[in-house]
Every structure is written in C-alpha cells, then in structure tokens.
C-alpha cells in the first residue's frame, strides 16, 4: 500500500441547491507538503474543505483520505481542523485555554474514558507550541482575536494529527504575528512532518513558506510550486481569477 497520498480528489463537483460551486475538481496532496489554497471570495474554498472533512455530503466525484474512500474513513483524529469561523465562537463561553485545547483530545480518548496525566501533559505541550502557556488558565473569551486563533491551532495540534487543515486562520491577526504564525506552521511541517492545507488570502507571505500553491475558482486553475505561481503572467492570472485579479495582485 502506498501511503504517500494524504488526500486524493477526483472529478468532484458540488452545488448548493442549484448553485454550482465546485466543478470537476482533481486535486491531491502528498504527505509532507505544505499546500496553500488561494482564490477570491466565494470561489468555493471553504466548501471544498467542508467536503474533505465530511461536513457536506458529496454526490459527484470521489474523495480519498489516507488511501481510504471518505465514506469508509474513520480515523478522524488523524486530521486537525481550524475553521474560518473558529474565533467567532460565543465569547461569553466560560472555558479556559486548557479546557478548549483539551477538546482536541476528546474523540481520541474515547467514550467512557477520562483524561490521564499523559493527556494533560500533551495539552500543556500543545499550548506551549503556540506560545500561550502564560494564559493556560485564562478564559478564552478574554483573549485577543489573534491569541484565540492560536488556542484553536493548539486544539487542532494536540491530537498530533498527520494532516492539518486551516481555513483562513490569520484573519484578525496582526502582520508581525502572521509572520510568526507562518514560521510556526513551517516548523510543524518540517520538524514534525505534519502535512498542511492552508486556505489564505495572504498570497505574498504564503509563497515564501508553502511547498505547493493551488488556485481555486470553481475549478482548480493552477497547482504547482510557489516559484511558478509567482512567475505566472498577468494574463494567466486574469484567466483564472476573472476580474478579481487586481485584488489578488494587490495583496501580493
């Protein structure tokens, strides 16, 4: 069995009621890569991720995770997820950083079992990785948006996933911390061997860290290394992006 492929998508299409959002997607991710997924607003990035996570049922095409068809896939704790709206949770919710991160282990520990000393150690370690140890017993609602985002990343990391999916995790994070954040991701990718799929609009920063870039706008228009992405002509870009090209180039 070849285990190099983390994700394989074939001829996937998806429509909300009658609105076609994804068309004929062929896309795969190899183990150890750091994939940046870019595309204008409404291009279907979040939809694609929800399909990968099984949050939406797919009707046409196939999705395979770790060489298993998604219908049969059970190993969900091999996948970590930070959602686009992670920090739009009920900020009045009384939960400490420790408690939020512990949720990342809930499914792994399993029903009728309790957290052990080892689990507690793992939780503290994950909080340490994102540099939030000092806030371990503070309520998450009292933290800044960027700090909350880091807590959610720790929650995704604590189960030691092989594949981490992040949907626009740097929204609301200041420039300096975005930089630190990418460095942290690159480190996880290189030193822990975690495969990453990151949805982002920071195309500029992205290209200096990712190993692959994919452009989505209903279809996958480009999938290659950052170097060739950067050297695409304006004309190629406008073909992919339609009239949104200026917006993307501007952020560059």
């Amino acid at each position: 069995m070849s285990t190099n492929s983390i994700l394989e998508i074939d001829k996937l299409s998806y429509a909300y009621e009658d609105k076609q959002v994804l068309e004929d997607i062929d896309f795969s991710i190899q183990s150890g890569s750091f994939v940046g997924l870019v595309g204008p607003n409404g291009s279907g990035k979040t939809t694609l991720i929800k399909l990968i996570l099984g949050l939406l049922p797919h009707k046409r095409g196939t999705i395979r995770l770790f060489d298993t068809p998604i219908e049969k896939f059970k190993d969900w704790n091999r996948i970590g997820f930070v959602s686009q709206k992670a920090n739009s949770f009920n900020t009045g919710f009384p939960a400490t950083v420790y408690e939020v991160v512990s949720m990342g282990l809930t499914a792994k520990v399993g029903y009728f079992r309790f957290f052990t000393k080892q689990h507690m150690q793992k939780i503290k370690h994950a909080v340490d990785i994102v540099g939030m140890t000092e806030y371990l017993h503070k309520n998450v609602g009292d933290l800044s948006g960027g700090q909350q985002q880091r807590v959610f990343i720790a929650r995704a990391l604590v189960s030691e996933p092989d594949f981490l999916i992040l949907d626009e995790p740097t929204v609301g994070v200041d420039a300096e911390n975005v930089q630190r954040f990418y460095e942290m991701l690159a480190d996880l990718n290189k030193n822990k061997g975690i495969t990453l799929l990151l949805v982002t609009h920071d195309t500029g920063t992205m290209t200096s860290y990712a190993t692959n870039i994919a452009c989505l706008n209903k279809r996958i228009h480009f999938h290659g290394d950052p170097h060739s992405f950067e050297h695409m002509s304006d004309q190629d870009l406008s073909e992919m992006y339609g009239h949104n090209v200026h917006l993307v180039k501007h952020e560059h």
Partner: protein
Amino acid sequence: MISSFLQYEFLQNAFFTALLIGFIAPLLGTFVVVRRLSLIADALSHVTLSGIAFGLMLDKKLGGFALTPFYTGMGFSVLGSIFIEQLRRVYKAYQELAIPIILSGGVGLSVIFISLADGFNTDLFNYLFGSVTAVSRQDLWTILVVALVVTSLVFLFYKELFMLSFDEEHAVVSGIHAKRIHFLFIILTALVIAASIRIVGVLLVSALMTLPVAASIRLARGFKQTIAFSILFGEASVLIGLVAGYFFEIPPGGTIVVTAILILIITLGFKKLQQRSHFKKVMS
C-alpha cells in the same frame, strides 16, 4: 425548626428533595445556558404542566389512578423534549421556532386537561408554584433516582457534552456522535425539569436552572468552575428559599427564585467593586 424537622416527615422530604434539585438543576443548567437554550427549559416546563394536568384529570375521572401527576408530568416532559428535537431538525434555519410551538402547545393542552379535571385546585397550585408540604416519600425516592442517573451520565459524558456545547462543528469533525450526545442532553434536561417542579413549581423551574449560572458565569474561570459555583449558588438559593417559604408560609418557588436573584445581584455588585479596585490599582 430542628424539632419540627425531626418530627414531620414532609419537612424531611422537602429538605432532601431540595438538596437534590439544588444540585442537578444548576448542573444541567450550566450546559443549557452556555448553549443559549434557556428558553427550552421554559418550553419543557410547560409541557410538564400539561402532563401534570393530564394526570390530575385521569385521577379525577378514573379515581385512585396508579400514575400520580408527578409521573405523567415527567413522561410528557421527555416526550416534549424529543418533539422539540424533531422540530428543530425540520426548521433548521429557524430553530428557535420550536420553542414557541412547544410552549404554546403545552399551555393549550394544560388548559384543556385542567378544565376537564374541573378546574383549579390546591394540587395544581402546588405544581405551579412549588410546595413544602406536598413532597411524598415516594416522590423523594423518584427524585433521588433521577438525580443519580443525571449526575452519573453527566459525569460519564462530561467531555463530550462540553465539546458539543462549545463547538458543534468541531465535535462533528472529530467524529463525536453529536446527534446522540445532544439527544442525551435534552432528555436529561427534561428529567431534571420534571423532578424540580415538586419544589420550585412549573413557572419558576427554568429560573432555578439559569439564575445560579448567570451569577456563576460572572465570577468563574473555566467551565468546571462555572458548574461548581452554579451548584453552590443553586443549593444556597434552594435551602434559604425553602426555610423562608416554610416560615412565611409562602410557596417555596417564590422565595427560592427571589433568593437566587439576590445572589445574582450580589455577585454583579461584587464584580463591579472588583473591577473598580483593579482600575484604581492600575491608575495609581
């Protein structure tokens, strides 16, 4: 007080029942409040009322019926909770619509059953506002069983319930059986409401589930501490309220809820003082 407590069985029943519901109502109430489902507690308490009225009617028509209104109320509460879930599934985008539907349905049925049972009597009054004298030994045993079942299930499924309350989508992605856990939660809520009605009454049961939590959320750090403080405030309200109700011969529902509100006001004031002194420290 002590001597009458030792002398009268009904006082012992009321006291131990109060201790039990002062524990389970805020325990479940914490999950209810953080999930913003406080109104479901109101809807379910009115469904319970229709069950109680149904029991009173059966009692009246059939005489000496084996099921007391307490049990028919509990049955209706559980059925009502299942029905709410179905409605919430049908009206995905308007989930809160399930609440007025169930609440008005409960009140409507109650009115019908009450008039069929020949109207208002003291029994019904006790169920509406709670009672110090009406709790039988058998009620106490039933409530004890409910409390044990609820507490052990919450303990057993604590981490799943917590996760579901915080972030349902994340729970689903992690592979937690969100629907089943939610179902468990709603049934437990229905049981707690039906059990609490004996002491606090239909109209005020949701207050006992939410007011202690409202006070606790202002002070606590983290979820476990919120539960602990909620239970502490719940027990204080129930015990002070019960004693006051007994002395002034007022239905305990009223005195319990007023005590809970006083506790809430005190915690809000305390929080304000704390913030002010902190502010002063920062400024000086």
